[in-house]
């Protein structure tokens, strides 16, 4: 009964979406404000019905209703409650339902919080949002019904894939989808604006909070996914350039570019055509990511679906929205008037530089991800493009971008003063140079790239601090005045500096982990000690215990540094009877920002086990940097919220600041 309620609610949501797809367009044509109001009601109601559908599916999992096919295939009555919840989206059907839940959530948000938007723009945005929603409701109902029943229900479920029985599944997919799907709003804004044929600086101001919100979630989602992969796979890696990872990285790169170009549009009324294009492209990349992951075209280790009908269906959705969006763009964009002239050396110029490099980096990821698919379709040859490709293309494109990061915020609008900015960054240069010299002295010899990369990380971080110091006249004016200026500084200025600082933090973590990380693989017998990077690991033996739905064999290690015991580490193997699968649970010990990492291999009859030990210096900075970036976004967003209440001329608030 519960499953039928869910399915019925989804059908109702589809019906509402179809109404919402058409009515607002007709209403704006005839300027009928009453009819326009329908869109807000349907958007909220749609969200209501999808929530009911989602809640019904959760209920089916929680009560372990194995008459529902997806519950039978992905759940087990003995599984802990938290995993019964998360297995809702740990499979194709459920994760698509989560996808539309978030899509309708964003639609409802526009309807509720978009009070300051012009009514026609708002309802057109809701109409476009509904086209997407209707397409995906149909996709779910036709090809991926999560509520399908089994005629002869079994007594027990097949259990969730043990690899997914982890808290990571509770956090990572919802965050990632909030980001992915959040970009649908910017797409809808772009299409609605093209339909109306009216795009101005105010448009950028309205769309920016949505972009920022989606970007924040995507940043955090990618970082959490990376950390999850790191601790769950037992290989010590945190990024594999796997197509599914790339699928989330591409919208992030395009979204980051969009975030920056929207600033130019908002402040200077320039780059309008480009910003609209980026808004379309960012969501297109999200759709491509969905296609790659959901259709099963990838030989990826992540691919879910094996049903070709799904692939074709998503491909049709993809072509319709990407093709349709770009066609509309080609038709309407030339009508937009460009405004705001500026010199190449200026804040605008710096942001264009940012956009060029981000989109180029995005394009290389795109090629590396899709080239193997294209080649196989055309010639039948099966190839894989791995990390070497991405390191060779992505790296060289990101270095100039990172060098430019501290310059951008210090440039003046319209016409900047490069020597002046360089002079103001002299502190950052000095710290970077010192970091290079120190690294070179300590590490000696080796690759010259490593000291340079560390210098770059410090340059980015100190550059971000310099930006704030300049704005508050720190050290140049009396402290009291700096304090007043700091308080007057807009939150978006703080947000920018914080996000850029986070970028440097992540880079620092990456460099340390990559170049000074150590690894050892060995067989150990009880009482034997292994040493790595100054730490001693003594193997004490194996213990067996029973978990709720698995048996666990864990190895006990005592960790010493300089002879003193600093703790225990217990990596383990879990075997899950239902799926006859086993997983490795790594043991982590955090020392400051560094980690010790142990994962267990096979055991031999003579009590000895294979074990992998890693020393990961400053590895936590990689994800911490991403969290800092996200917080920067949040700060900036909190500023916008105040401002979007009543759009004012962009520079009215900046009286106290030198140049924002």
């Amino acid at each position, binding site marked *: 009964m519960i499953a039928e309620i869910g399915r019925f609610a989804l059908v109702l949501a589809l019906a509402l979406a179809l109404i919402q797809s058409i009515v607002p367009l007709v209403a704006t044509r005839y300027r009928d404000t009453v009819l326009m109001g329908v869109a807000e009601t349907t958007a909220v109601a749609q969200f209501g019905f999808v929530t009911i559908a989602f809640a019904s599916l959760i209920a089916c999992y929680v009560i372990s209703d194995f008459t529902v096919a997806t519950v039978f295939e992905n759940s087990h009555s003995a599984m802990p409650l938290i995993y019964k919840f998360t297995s809702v989206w740990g499979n194709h059907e459920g994760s698509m339902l989560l996808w539309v839940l978030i899509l309708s959530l964003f639609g409802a948000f526009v309807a509720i919080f978009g009070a300051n938007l012009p009514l026609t723009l708002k309802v057109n945005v809701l109409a476009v949002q509904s086209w997407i929603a209707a397409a995906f409701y149909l996709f779910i109902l036709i090809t991926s019904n999560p509520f399908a029943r089994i005629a002869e229900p079994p007594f027990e479920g097949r259990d969730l894939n043990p690899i997914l029985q982890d808290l990571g599944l509770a956090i990572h997919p919802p965050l990632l989808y909030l980001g992915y799907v959040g970009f649908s709003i910017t797409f809808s804004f772009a299409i609605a604006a093209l339909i109306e044929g009216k795009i101005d600086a105010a448009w950028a101001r309205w769309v920016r909070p949505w972009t920022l919100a989606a970007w924040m979630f995507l940043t955090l989602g990618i970082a959490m996914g990376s950390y999850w992969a790191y601790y769950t796979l037992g290989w010590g890696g945190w990024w594999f350039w796997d197509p599914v990872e790339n699928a989330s990285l591409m919208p992030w790169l395009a979204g980051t570019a969009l975030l920056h170009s929207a600033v130019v549009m908002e402040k200077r009324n320039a780059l309008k055509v480009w910003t609209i294009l980026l808004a379309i492209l960012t969501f297109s990349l999200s759709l491509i990511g969905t296609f790659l992951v959901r259709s099963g075209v990838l030989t990826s280790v*992540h691919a879910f679906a094996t049903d070709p009908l799904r692939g074709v269906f998503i491909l049709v959705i993809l072509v319709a929205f990407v093709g349709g969006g770009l066609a509309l763009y080609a038709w309407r964009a030339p009508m937009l008037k460009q405004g705001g002239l500026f010199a190449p050396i200026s804040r605008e110029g710096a942001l264009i530089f940012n956009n060029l490099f981000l989109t180029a980096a995005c394009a290389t990821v795109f090629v590396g991800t899709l080239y193997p698919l294209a080649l196989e379709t055309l010639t039948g040859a099966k190839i894989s493009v791995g990390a070497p490709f991405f390191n060779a*293309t992505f790296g060289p494109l990101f270095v100039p971008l990172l060098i430019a990061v501290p310059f951008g915020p210090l440039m003046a609008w319209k016409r900047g003063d490069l020597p002046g900015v360089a002079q103001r960054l002299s502190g950052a240069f000095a710290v970077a140079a010192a970091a290079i010299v120190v690294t070179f002295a300590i590490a000696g010899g080796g690759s010259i790239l490593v000291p340079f990369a560390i210098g770059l990380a410090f340059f980015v971080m100190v550059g971000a601090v310099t930006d704030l110091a300049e704005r508050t006249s720190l050290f140049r004016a009396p402290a009291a005045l700096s304090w007043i200026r700091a308080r007057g500084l807009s939150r978006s200025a703080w947000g920018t500096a914080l996000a850029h600082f986070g970028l440097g933090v992540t880079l620092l973590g990456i460099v340390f982990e990559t170049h000074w990380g150590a690894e050892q693989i060995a067989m150990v017998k009880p009482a034997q000690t292994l040493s790595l990077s100054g730490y001693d690991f003594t193997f004490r033996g194996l213990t067996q215990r029973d978990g709720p739905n698995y048996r666990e064999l864990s190895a006990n290690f005592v960790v010493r540094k300089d002879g003193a015991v600093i703790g225990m580490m217990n990596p383990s193997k879990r075997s899950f009877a239902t799926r006859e*699968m086993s997983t490795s649970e790594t043991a982590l010990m955090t020392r400051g920002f560094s980690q010790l990492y142990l994962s267990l291999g*096979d055991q031999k009859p003579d009590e000895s086990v294979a074990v992998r030990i890693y020393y990961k210096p400053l590895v936590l900075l990689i994800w911490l940097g991403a969290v800092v970036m996200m917080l920067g976004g949040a700060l900036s967003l909190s500023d916008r919220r105040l401002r979007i209440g009543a759009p004012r001329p962009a520079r009215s608030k900046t009286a106290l600041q030198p140049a924002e």
Partner: protein
Amino acid sequence: MLALSVALVLSALRESIVFFNSPTDVVEKHIAPGTRIRVGGLVKSGSFVRSDKLLIRFNITDGNQEIPVVYEGFVPDLFREGQGVVAEGALEPNGTFRADSVLAKHDERYMPREVADALKKQGHWVDDYDKQAGAGRPAKSQQGERAR
């Protein structure tokens, strides 16, 4: 900028592409030792040997040809005899394939697509696999599938 990106992409592609081969391809194409390739098929039943310490040996088969593989390190949790596997590495002059990574992309119902194709080509595909693969949902993976 565009030219720079294209140049980067092209040079990187030339150097980093790895082709996938079935054991039959490896034998028929006379792939030169030292060329990086991927070989996929089933781990032949009874061929798995763990010699000293971490060194393991097994044969990859597509039912027609077999390739002996040596690998030092951890095998994935899902690695098992009779199951699909993809190994990446290079052939040695004596015909042994030295792998530096081993992927077992399957669960009890699913088989890697390349492996399935390779088996179909050799006529060793049992219809039952297809049904199982169709009925079973996810391509469960060793490298950790994250529900994206």
